[in-house]
């Protein structure tokens, strides 16, 4: 036994699968936070997406419809949050936490009849002979379409936030909502759109857990993934590629520590188990050491309520 039993190909492939749910959820939250809204309900939206996607996939036999339903349910739940915080001006932190609790309860209610059922399999994307190549065949061309979607989404969000006019508007709303309002931007409407998008992404991430990664429905199956997604957004200092790095790093360390254990490498398990969190803390310290909040890249209006009368 030893390191030789670990196949790098399988390791990287399973790393990508392990990272995809948090990547999707974190991308959604990134857009929400860039618009100046702090939605702590990611966990609740993920798990609601997990059960709604699972139920839809089992009901229709189509994983694709399952993912659509998951995105829709995540967005719907997020809009409840949006209505409460943007229209009724409730506290974002408290409402977000409530959304998590509500999502966990709602999902276990909806999931009553679904434990022990196997969902229809999500097929790997068929690249023909490319999939038979050594290493890259499995790592680059051997995944299901959601993995590619998550990567495409990363690029798209990067482009949207840094290269498009709409992205500039969204960031303006997040940086200074009063100035944006004075310029005639519809702050609340833009934020509601961002919140719905964030919910849809979280729902997709949840459905990836219940339809591909685990694949089954179990109550409470997200087990904190939503919170990790929130941490990754900070870790990435609110940048799309940073989110990708953070999610893959986190997924990578998680998978690596299990593989090292399975290979019988004599290394204390406790250190491996805590390593993803240690890395997160270390990066946060390094980044904040640069120079305050600005270097971190946090949107200036993050979590602040806005009303046009102000």
């Amino acid at each position, binding site marked *: *036994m030893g390191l030789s*039993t*670990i*196949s790098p190909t*399988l*390791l990287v492939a*399973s790393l990508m699968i*392990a990272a995809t*749910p948090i990547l999707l959820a974190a991308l959604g939250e990134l857009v929400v936070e860039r618009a100046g809204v702090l939605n702590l309900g990611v966990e609740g939206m993920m798990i609601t997406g997990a059960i709604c996607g699972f139920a839809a996939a089992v009901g229709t036999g189509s994983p694709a419809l399952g993912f659509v339903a998951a995105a829709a349910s995540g967005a719907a739940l997020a809009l409840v949050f949006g209505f409460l915080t943007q229209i009724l001006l409730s506290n974002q932190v408290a409402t977000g936490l409530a959304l998590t609790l509500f999502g966990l309860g709602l999902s*276990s209610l909806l*999931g*009553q009849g679904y*434990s*022990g*059922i*196997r969902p229809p399999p999500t097929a790997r994307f068929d690249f023909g002979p490319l999939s038979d190549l050594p290493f890259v065949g499995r790592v680059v061309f051997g995944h299901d379409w959601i993995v590619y979607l998550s990567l495409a989404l990363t690029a798209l969000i990067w482009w949207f936030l840094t290269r498009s006019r709409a992205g500039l508007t969204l960031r303006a709303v997040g940086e200074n909502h009063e100035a944006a309002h004075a310029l005639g931007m519809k702050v609340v409407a833009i934020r509601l759109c961002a919140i719905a998008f964030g919910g849809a992404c979280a729902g997709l991430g949840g459905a990836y*857990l219940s339809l591909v*990664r*685990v*694949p*089954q429905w*179990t*109550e*409470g*199956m*997200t*087990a*904190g*993934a939503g919170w990790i997604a929130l941490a990754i957004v900070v870790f990435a200092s609110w940048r799309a590629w940073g989110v990708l790095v953070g999610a893959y790093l986190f997924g990578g360390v*998680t*998978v690596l520590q*299990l*593989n090292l*254990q*399975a*290979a*019988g490498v*004599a290394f*204390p*398990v*406790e250190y491996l*188990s805590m390593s993803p969190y240690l890395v997160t803390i270390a990066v946060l310290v390094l980044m904040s050491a640069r120079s305050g909040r600005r270097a971190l890249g946090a949107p200036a209006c993050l979590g602040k309520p806005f009303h046009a009368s102000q």
Partner: protein
Amino acid sequence: MYRRVLLSATAALALTGGFAAAQDEPTKVGFVFVGPIGDGGWTYEHNQARLAVEEEYGDAVETVFQESVPEGADAERVLTQMALSGADLIFTTSFGYMDPTINVAQRFPDVKFEHATGYKTAPNVSTYSARFYEGRAVQGLIAGRMTESNRIGYIASFPIPEVVRGINASYLAAKAVNPDVQFNVVWAFTWFDPAKEADAAQALIDQGADVILQHTDSTAPQAAAAEAGDVITFGQASDMAEYAPMPRVSSIIDNWAPYYIERVGDVMDGSWESQQVWYGIDEGMVKIGEISDAVPDDVREEAMALRDAISAGETHPFTGPINRQDGTEWLAEGETADDETLLGMDFYVEGLSGEIPN
């Protein structure tokens, strides 16, 4: 105005409460669960037993439960809350609730507590556990016979005696029928995290394990094995029959209902006393789930014979000669392990590789 309404409402509640108490008040039984009741494993079975208590006593009993309670300080808060709200008997169903249970029990001497799988008792705290290792031995035998790669993956939760005992018992039984067998143990440090359990199973399968044993509570490893195709698993704590006949070829089922019904009855008629019970296959607290068709007939019969021999007391899963991992002698030829050593087991037997985390 509001305050007055509130006060009179409270007074009315107190009055009706008092009135109800004067009448025949149902015995209130609390349950504290470590996972969700829909986990399909450990907590699911405890909840089934709770429902059996309700069925048995009907209106004479009222049960309350709280699920997914973290082990540690939160448990103490939950327990205090339950005791304050009038519970007569509280079942705390995970090892990590041991100290919180003892602490809260000191403050509520009139409330009875039943703590699962621990070893600390008090005048109002009993412990109960099942000899899961008896079932583990049967699993180990099937695993040793069925493996082709001779690599058996084991997803362990926390390094506590119960888990270490399970690893040792299944290893010894597997080794007895297949000397080449090798165990790879992965510590997940969680009772319930489907994604992590699935990843652990995947890591073991990627490295050539074709049998996965689990000591975590969800069915995620079963799903990972089903995906891999030629890997077998065993249901943990619950039958997990939805994964039969493959990958789940058998299971250990925890059957708590008879014990819970008995102890609630004891509280009702006032005969409850602190005790320590450790029941096995013989008493029916540990059951072996049906061995599926994926297992050849001769292996099935061998496994059944081992189960019956353990049940009858003819065989003990820990019978010497057994050495500890470092090569020192633990049990001499023909000697069987005593319960005290088993309850505090913190060492691997010879042949297992790796270290138990502290």
